[in-house]
C-alpha cells in the first residue's frame, strides 16, 4: 500500500514507470508525513459529507409520511393512459429533434473554440485561457437555465430548447473535443509542419483524421445525453415531452403521467442503444 502510493506519486512527477532499482520503499519520515496527510484528508472528507447531510435537510420521517401518498399515486397510475398517444409521440419526437439540432448547432460553435482551447492547437496561450473560461461558463450553466432565458427571448416552443441545448452543449463538446485533440500524437503534426503548411492545414490534414473517431464518439454521447436531459426542458415551456409531463403532474393525471414515463423510457433506451452501437463501430 505504502509502496504503491510512493510509486504512484513518483510516476506522476516524472511521467515514467519506475524501474525495479528505484522502486524502493519510501524513507520513514516521508511515509509518516504521507500517512498524516492522508488521515487529515479523510477526516476533512467525512466532515464535508456530514455537513452536506445536514444542509440537504435529510429526514427519514418526512419520507415515511410521504410514502402513503406515493403509493396511492402509483395505484392510480395503473393502467397507463395511452389515449393521447399521437400527441405524446409527437412531443417525444420534438424532444429528439431538439436534442439533435441543438447538439449540431453546439458542435458548430464548439469547432473553432476547441482549437483555441486545446494546448497543442491554440495559436497563443493568450487565447487558450480565455477560451477555456468561456467553455467553463457555458458548461457551468445548465441547458435548463439557458432554455429559461431563451423562452423569454424567442417565446415558448422547441426553438428555445434548441438554443438552450446548443449553448450549453457547445461548452461540453468543445471541452471534450479539446481534450481529445490534446491526446493526439505530436509526430504527424510535426512532420506536416515541416512541409511548410500553416497550422489550420496541419490540423485538418494531419491531426483530424487520427482523432476523428473520438470526436464523433463524443458528439454521439452528447446527443444521447441531451435526449435524456432535454425531457425536462418542456417544464420551462421550451418544448418536447416535458411539457406534457408537467401538464399531467399539475392535473394529477397519474395514468397519463405513467404513459409519458414509459414513452420517455422507450425513447431513451432506443437512442442509448443506437448511440452505443454507433460509437462501438467508430472506435
Amino acid at each position, binding site marked *: 500500500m505504502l509502496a504503491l502510493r510512493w510509486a504512484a506519486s513518483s510516476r506522476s512527477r516524472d511521467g515514467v514507470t519506475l524501474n525495479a532499482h528505484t522502486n524502493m520503499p519510501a524513507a520513514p519520515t516521508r511515509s509518516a508525513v504521507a500517512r498524516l496527510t492522508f488521515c487529515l484528508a479523510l477526516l476533512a472528507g467525512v466532515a464535508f459529507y456530514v455537513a452536506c447531510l445536514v444542509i440537504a435537510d435529510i429526514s427519514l420521517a418526512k419520507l415515511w409520511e410521504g410514502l402513503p401518498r406515493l403509493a396511492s399515486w402509483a395505484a392510480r397510475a395503473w393502467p397507463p393512459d395511452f389515449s393521447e398517444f399521437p400527441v405524446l409521440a409527437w412531443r417525444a419526437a420534438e424532444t429528439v429533434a431538439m436534442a439533435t439540432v441543438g447538439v449540431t448547432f453546439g458542435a458548430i460553435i464548439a469547432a473553432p473554440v476547441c482549437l483555441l482551447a486545446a494546448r497543442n492547437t491554440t495559436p497563443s496561450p493568450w487565447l487558450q485561457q480565455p477560451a477555456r473560461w468561456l467553455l467553463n461558463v457555458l458548461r457551468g450553466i445548465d441547458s435548463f437555465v439557458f432554455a429559461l432565458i431563451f423562452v423569454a427571448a424567442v417565446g415558448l416552443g422547441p426553438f428555445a430548447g434548441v438554443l438552450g441545448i446548443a449553448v450549453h452543449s457547445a461548452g461540453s463538446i468543445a471541452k471534450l473535443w479539446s481534450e481529445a485533440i490534446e491526446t493526439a*500524437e505530436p*509526430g*504527424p503534426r*510535426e*512532420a*506536416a*509542419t*515541416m*512541409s*511548410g*503548411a*500553416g497550422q*489550420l*492545414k*496541419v490540423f*485538418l*490534414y*494531419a491531426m483530424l*483524421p*487520427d482523432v*476523428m473517431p473520438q470526436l464523433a464518439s463524443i458528439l454521439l454521447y452528447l446527443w444521447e445525453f441531451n435526449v435524456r436531459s432535454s425531457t425536462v426542458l418542456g417544464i420551462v415551456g421550451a418544448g418536447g415531452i416535458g411539457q406534457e409531463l408537467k401538464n399531467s403532474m399539475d392535473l394529477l393525471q397519474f395514468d397519463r403521467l405513467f404513459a409519458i414515463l414509459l414513452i420517455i423510457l422507450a425513447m431513451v433506451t432506443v437512442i442509448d442503444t443506437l448511440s452505443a452501437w454507433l460509437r462501438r463501430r467508430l472506435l
Partner: protein
Amino acid sequence: MSNHPALRAYGISKAYGGMQALRDVSLSLRSGEVVAVLGPSGSGKSTLMRCLTRLTEPDSGEIFVGARALHGARGQDLRNVRRDIGVVFQQFNLIRRRSALENVLAGRLKDAPLWRVATSHFSSQDLERAHEALAAVGLAAQCHQRADTLSGGQQQRVAIARALAQDSKVLLADEPVASLDPDTAHAVLALMANLAASKGLAVLCTLHQPQMAQAYANRVLTMKNGQLTHEGQRVPSM
C-alpha cells in the same frame, strides 16, 4: 546550382533547465552528401535535429538553408524555409488512418488550397508528384494501403517519400533505422544514400551504429555531451 551549402548551422546551443543539451554546435552540409551523426544516447543528437528544424527553438545560433535564414524567420518566411527541409523520424510519424499516398501528399500541403487540404482532393500535379515519390522508394503498389497496416520499413520509406514529394533540399533523419530490423535498416539507409546521390539531397542522419555510418555516410560527425567531438571521413576508432 547555388554555391551555398545546403545547410549551415553556427553556434547552436540549447539548455533544458540547468542541463546544457547542445553547446555551440556548428556544421555544414553540401548537396548530395550523406553526413552521419554518431553518439551515445543523451549526447544531444536528437536535440540537434530538432533545433535544426526549429521544432525545438534553440537558445542561440544561426541556421541557413541554402541562402535563406531559418533562425529568426516567422510566419510565411518560416514556412518557406521549412519547406526545404524534409524530416524523417525514428517513429515514422505517419498519419495512421491515412493511406501511404495521402501521407506522401502531406509533403504538398503548403501550396495546396485550403479546400483541397480539407477534402483530401489534391490537384493532378500533386498526385503525380506523390506517385513518383512513392515509386522512387519502391512502394508504388502500396499507395492505397493504410499507413498503420504497413511494416516498419515500409512506413519509413513512406516518410522518405513524403520528404521527396515536398521537394526539400535537405533531409534530416533522426535515428531513422533505430526501430527497424538490420536488413530493413540497411535497405532504408541505402535508399537515402541513393537519393542523396541521384537527387542532390543533403542528408544529415543520426545513427548509433558506427558500422552503418561507415557504410553509407560520406562524412561522420560524433557528438558527446552536446558538443561535436570529431569530424572526418571515417568513424573514429573506438
